[in-house]
């Protein structure tokens, strides 16, 4: 049975419907990540769960109890904000203990609880400082401590890492992950960083303009995006979308690419049987890492097609080199090994691994 349930949730702010009927379920101990472009309603949804915004319609159910009318403080939820929202006038210790104090927990119990939380987060030496005396990463940890100490039923995180620099972000991400693994907390987490979403989530919800685009595990979202929006949104560089046409039918169907009859690839295994009809225009979605130099091609892959194409630009990142090439007037990006040396203008031979390719209907944008 699901622990957190959101049923047909709608929220109007002024005349704008910001959330247009959201349905989500999350099991106990699950880690739900909400992703979506800026302004899609992620924070609004999180605030609604927390009770910081009244709902227009729909229900929020926690552990079987409809909490729509409960005040935020009675929902037994903790929240970590993007700005951390630490109380600047209190020490770290007071910050962490504040929620307990509000609940009337006796002083020595509070102190003990703070100690435990501080130990978990390795901020014991900071307890007497004020937020202004902390670095970004430390503040982040205090904010987590404040949530942790309450042992709430649900944790909410609103873009907690977006104020950190890249290096720290990786570290704190790992901390959050291990925290989740150790405490088995139920978490709803907002981000617009796909890597964060992929690495942390047990379940990802992709939102766009107040509607759910897809709900699934990270692997499902990444490998089997429900539509073009999800495909494009998750992953960086974005998934390549190659114009194709179905040639042949049934088991013999192939897809010709780049408007070139001579380049055909087999229908990827991800496509549902009978979803394609001959002559149909499709978009073949292929992640950059599925297009590589021939040396890197996955030896276990079932269908690899090699295609030569002129190189437009190379971007060596050190660990890999992204190569942008052109075929049929369209660009695509491949991820090759860092050693591969090719330059703009060269013609290069790419290995297309079609095991993970997905096919979309260009009209509806849905995956076939």
């Amino acid at each position: 049975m699901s622990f957190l349930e959101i049923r047909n949730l709608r929220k109007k702010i002024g005349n704008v419907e910001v959330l247009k009927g959201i349905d989500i379920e999350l099991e106990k101990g699950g880690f739900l990540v909400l992703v979506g472009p800026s302004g899609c309603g992620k924070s609004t949804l999180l605030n609604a769960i927390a009770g910081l915004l009244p709902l227009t319609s729909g229900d929020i159910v926690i552990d079987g109890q409809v909490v729509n009318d409960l005040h935020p403080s009675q929902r037994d939820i903790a929240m970590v904000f993007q700005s951390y929202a630490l109380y600047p006038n209190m020490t770290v210790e007071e910050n962490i203990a504040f929620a307990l104090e509000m609940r009337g927990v006796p002083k020595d119990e509070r102190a003990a609880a703070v100690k435990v939380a501080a130990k978990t987060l390795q901020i014991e030496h900071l307890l007497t400082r004020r937020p202004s005396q902390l670095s970004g990463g430390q503040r982040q940890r205090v904010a987590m401590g404040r949530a942790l100490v309450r042992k709430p039923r649900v944790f909410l995180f609103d873009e907690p890492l977006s104020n950190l620099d890249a290096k720290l972000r990786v570290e704190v991400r790992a901390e959050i992950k291990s925290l989740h693994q150790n405490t088995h907390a139920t978490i709803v987490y907002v981000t617009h960083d796909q890597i964060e979403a992929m690495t942390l989530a047990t379940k990802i919800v992709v939102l766009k303009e107040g509607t759910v685009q897809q709900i699934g595990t990270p692997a499902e979202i990444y490998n089997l995006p429900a539509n073009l929006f999800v495909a494009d949104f998750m992953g960086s560089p974005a998934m390549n979308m190659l114009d194709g046409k179905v040639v042949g039918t049934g088991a013999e169907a192939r897809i010709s690419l780049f408007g070139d009859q001579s380049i055909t690839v087999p229908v990827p295994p991800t496509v549902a049987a009978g979803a394609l009809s001959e002559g149909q225009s499709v978009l073949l979605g292929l992640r950059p890492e599925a297009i590589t130099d021939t040396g890197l091609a996955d030896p276990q892959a079932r269908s690899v097609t090699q295609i030569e194409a002129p190189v437009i630009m190379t971007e060596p990142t050190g660990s890999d080199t992204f190569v942008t090439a052109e075929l049929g007037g369209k660009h695509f990006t491949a991820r090759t090994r860092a050693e591969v040396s090719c330059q703009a203008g060269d013609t290069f031979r790419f290995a297309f691994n079609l095991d993970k390719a997905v096919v979309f209907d260009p009209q509806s944008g849905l995956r076939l």
Partner: protein
Amino acid sequence: MSGAVQETVSGGSAKTARVVIYGLLILLAAIYLLPLYVMLTTSLKSLDEIRGGDMLSLPSSPSIAAWTKAWGEACIGVTCTGIKGYFWNSIKMVVPAVIISTLLGALNGYVLTKWRFPGHKIIFGMMLFACFIPFQAVLIPMARMLGMMGIANTTTGLVFVHVIYGLGFTTLFFRNYYEAFPDELIKAAMMDGAGFFRIFWRILLPTSGPIIVVTVIYQFTNIWNDFLFGVSFSSGGSSPMTVALNNLVASSTGVKEYNVDMAAAVFAALPTLFVYIVAGRYFVRGLMAGAVKG
């Protein structure tokens, strides 16, 4: 701008709470309005009604006779042309004084934040401290200086005085505002080839709207309402409004025409009231933007 406390899911007591809040606010507003109310109603009453009646009652037969008298006929000294002439005196004094002090404050704020040099803090501190000098203490030496400069008893002299003693405030306002103005914009303009003044005119000043509003409101009300400098450094027909009003209201002999006094007081208050009501919202915004450290 949203309230600090947002709307949340709320219990049943919220309705009563709102009633209490509105009730309190309306009550307080009524209390704050009383003096203005009394001034207005009194100015519309006849003298007999004022003497005999209740201060808070509405005028039984409102008449604007007192208004026309205050504006055009009341005697101040030996001239009986009302306060209208003095109204314009005030305008002639306030407008240049506000413009000059604002402009100088803006330039000072600009230098003190974007073109710092060693000692800028001391200079700013000294300018700020100047805000706090009691004006009574400067009357005599100021009169001497004005005399030496040949602008004693002139509107120019009054403008000069108001500019000087407004500088501390205007500089403070603009400095706090420009402090938050990104340095990078100045750097960019420098690299684009703009000089000191061009950066000021083209980049800073056009974006100083909120703080200009605060400064202008502040300076306008202070200078308009000033009495001490007005009475000391102007004479007779060139006196500002407040001095004329005082001559009308505080004269020690003769029948007190309270309705005329009040009408004159309302006239004297009109420009500042107007400024506050029209620009009040920008005032809070401007305070946020710089005048108050939040």
